[in-house]
């Protein structure tokens, strides 16, 4: 048992580090900036694209993509090693995530050679950013209940409806879209998958203001938007299967929630006075800290187990399915407990607060962590069904034509 890289992994890590040292700035120690969404900063998008272009040239974009897609043809392990190194630098790569982890792999796997040829390269180089047009007001956890219509008109499809929770729709050039092409068959069977040019006439994007005050997500409305049939991915009516090809990438990722974690809470407890002295001397505080340390380390070593499988070229075991579920809830609880320690001064936000107000901010954005990318409840269902082998829920809508499925109290 050891945590060290194999000689090949070490060589790759050195190469990645050298690239990053030459092209990016290291994060400052103790900086909390890394936890904040940086894409709203002026010029951030342009800097991100310029860096992505360099990554592509150096072979660090699409590391685990096959060579025929323009990738490096490397391993998942190399991808993780690169991400570990990149996390130490002040770069913004998240905006390319939907394109590189979900959209392009789906298009390349299920689409035509022409589609692959057209879209893979520009996405890899950061020239084109992608968004995911899946969720709808009537189809969140129950994605297949989506109602946006795709009606065939000759060589085109005409799209009408609405999507929601679309990250980055306002700066994306393309989106992957699932729409209902046939309401007369059961819900999973009537869907078709498309590539949408976000500049198409009839596409309207409205930001959603989150409870944190920022606007990371959007609503996207379609009014008679035309998509050429050449931009259909997979067969008509196969949209669900196509969408599922890479959706699990989002849920089973190794990424943890951004936000205050054990170290920040420990730092806070070290510096704060309670009624009987330093918080760190208080037995109740110690007990809480110990519990979160154990969870944090449990996640860290669960990832190590997953990485070990990847390092051997195996498919990771089911243990990776717990990471997002545990991390999201932990962030919210740590934010709330940090504020409990700060006490009466806790509501105040801003630079004079401990860790520049990190706990106050996290209070407001952490609810989203437990919902986006698979709610806690859906993740528990996935563990119960796919890992433990328990039966699916009874689904009253499963074998019914979609048009007959109830959709509200009076529907």
């Amino acid at each position: 048992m050891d945590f060290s890289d194999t000689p090949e992994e070490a060589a790759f890590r050195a190469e990645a580090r050298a690239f990053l040292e030459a092209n990016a700035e290291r994060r400052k120690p103790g900086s909390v900036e890394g936890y904040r969404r940086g894409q709203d900063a002026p010029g951030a998008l342009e800097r991100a694209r310029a860096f992505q272009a360099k990554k592509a040239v150096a072979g660090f974009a699409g590391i685990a993509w096959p060579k025929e897609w323009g990738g490096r043809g490397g391993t998942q392990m190399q991808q993780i090693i690169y991400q570990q190194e990149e996390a130490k630098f002040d770069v913004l790569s998240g905006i390319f995530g939907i394109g590189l982890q979900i959209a392009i792999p789906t298009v390349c796997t299920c689409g035509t050679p022409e589609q692959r040829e057209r879209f893979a390269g520009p996405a890899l180089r950061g020239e084109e950013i992608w968004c995911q047009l899946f969720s709808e007001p009537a189809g969140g956890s129950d994605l297949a209940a989506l109602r946006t219509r795709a009606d065939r008109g000759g060589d085109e499809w005409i799209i009408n409806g609405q999507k929601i929770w679309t990250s980055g729709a306002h700066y994306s050039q393309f989106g992957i879209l699932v729409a209902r092409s046939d309401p007369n068959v059961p819900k999973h069977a009537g869907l078709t998958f498309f590539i949408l040019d976000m500049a198409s006439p009839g596409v309207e994007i409205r930001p959603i203001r989150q409870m944190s005050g920022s606007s990371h997500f959007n609503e996207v409305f379609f009014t008679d938007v035309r998509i050429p049939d050449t931009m259909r991915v997979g067969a008509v009516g196969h949209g669900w299967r196509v969408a599922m090809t890479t959706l699990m990438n989002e849920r089973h990722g190794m990424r943890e929630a951004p936000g205050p974690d054990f170290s920040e809470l420990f730092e806070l407890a070290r510096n704060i006075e309670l009624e009987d002295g330093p918080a760190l001397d208080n037995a109740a505080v110690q007990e809480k800290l110990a519990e979160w340390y154990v969870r944090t380390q449990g996640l860290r070593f669960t990832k190590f187990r997953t990485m070990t499988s990847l390092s051997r070229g195996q498919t990771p075991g089911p243990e990776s399915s717990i990471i997002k579920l545990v991390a999201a809830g932990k962030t919210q609880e740590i934010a709330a407990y940090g504020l409990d320690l700060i006490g009466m001064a806790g509501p105040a936000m801003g630079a004079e607060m401990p860790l520049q107000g990190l706990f106050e901010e996290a209070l407001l954005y952490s609810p989203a962590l437990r919902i986006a990318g698979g709610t806690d409840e859906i993740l528990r269902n996935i563990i119960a069904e796919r890992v433990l082998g328990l039966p699916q829920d009874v689904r009253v809508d499963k074998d019914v034509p979609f048009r007959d499925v109830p959709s509200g109290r009076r529907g």
Partner: protein
Amino acid sequence: MNFDFPDDLRQLRDEARRFLRDRCPTSVPRRILESAEPYDRKLWGEIAGMGWIGAAIPEAFGGAGLGALGVCVLAEELGRALAPVPFSSSVYLATEAILAFGSDAQKERLLPRLAAGETIGTFAFAERPGAADPRKLEAHVADGRLHGTKLAVPDGDVADFAIVAARGDERAPWLHRVELGGSGVTRTPVATFDPSRSHARIVFDGAPAEPLPRGQGAQQVRHLLDRATVMMAFEQVGVAQAALEMARDYALERYAFGRPIGSFQAIKHKLADIYVAVELARSNAYYGAWALSTDAAELPIAAAVARIAACEAGWVATRENIQTHGGMGFTWQFDCQLYYRRAKLLGLALGSAREWKHRLIGELRARNTTSQMAA
């Protein structure tokens, strides 16, 4: 990155699982629970014959030379099977104490007999309700004679000797070896909430005590507990995993309201939460195993982390296993009780999670490098 057991040990784990599935179904711990028999002597002889008891003992001393990692994989399987044998006392504690702190002569004399299972050792520490602290021992050794009382000593009624934490000449804690069948020792079996593992109250009144030369000081006692705790964490994970599987199987089999109860989200989510607790505990136990096998300076932290997560997983899994079974879960007839009793027993042996949380924070403060460790 290779955060897994080596191939030969993974193979040993599979073999152990197959052997125990046949040889130690739940009827075996149940028999010990329901009878006056203190442990399954025949099973003890069989696992000795397969080299399990001497897994960590070097071949030169009659062991299998598999190191601490070998003990970890066996511990998980023995936990899964609720094996009613004095493995933890003799292997995690007595053997580890002699390996770490014994003289060459003691090793030569004791280790081959321990490896063969002919001699059973245990560890006697707790003296009163509350936190067991090596700096606050009443038991003491004077002129080579031990005086004091130890409560709830696991396998205290069947062990041939005990490693006893007692104050030495300098009043500092010092690990001594004491023959339990000799003069000056009175042992009384005690009833516990898990009779599938036997315990005894032991009164020492001038019993001859032989010091372990390098076992002097609170740090040494702590080190022994740290090592044993990691091995115990694997046993706890085994218990928790078995309880999860029992709950899962029942949820598939039991119908209510016209469907298997495992199709209700109330049950599915409960079992998913158990799975999360077990996997976190397993990952943290691996961390402990890594620290054991590399003699890492982080061992006290890794042991505490492994311990706390294992106690949580064992408790949640065995408690909710009963809940999943409903009324049948608390009958004598169903096996849920066996897991529930054992999980809590293991969760108290070597100190409760509460004690280890206190210790963990103390260690983290002492090191003062939390950002690095939580990275």
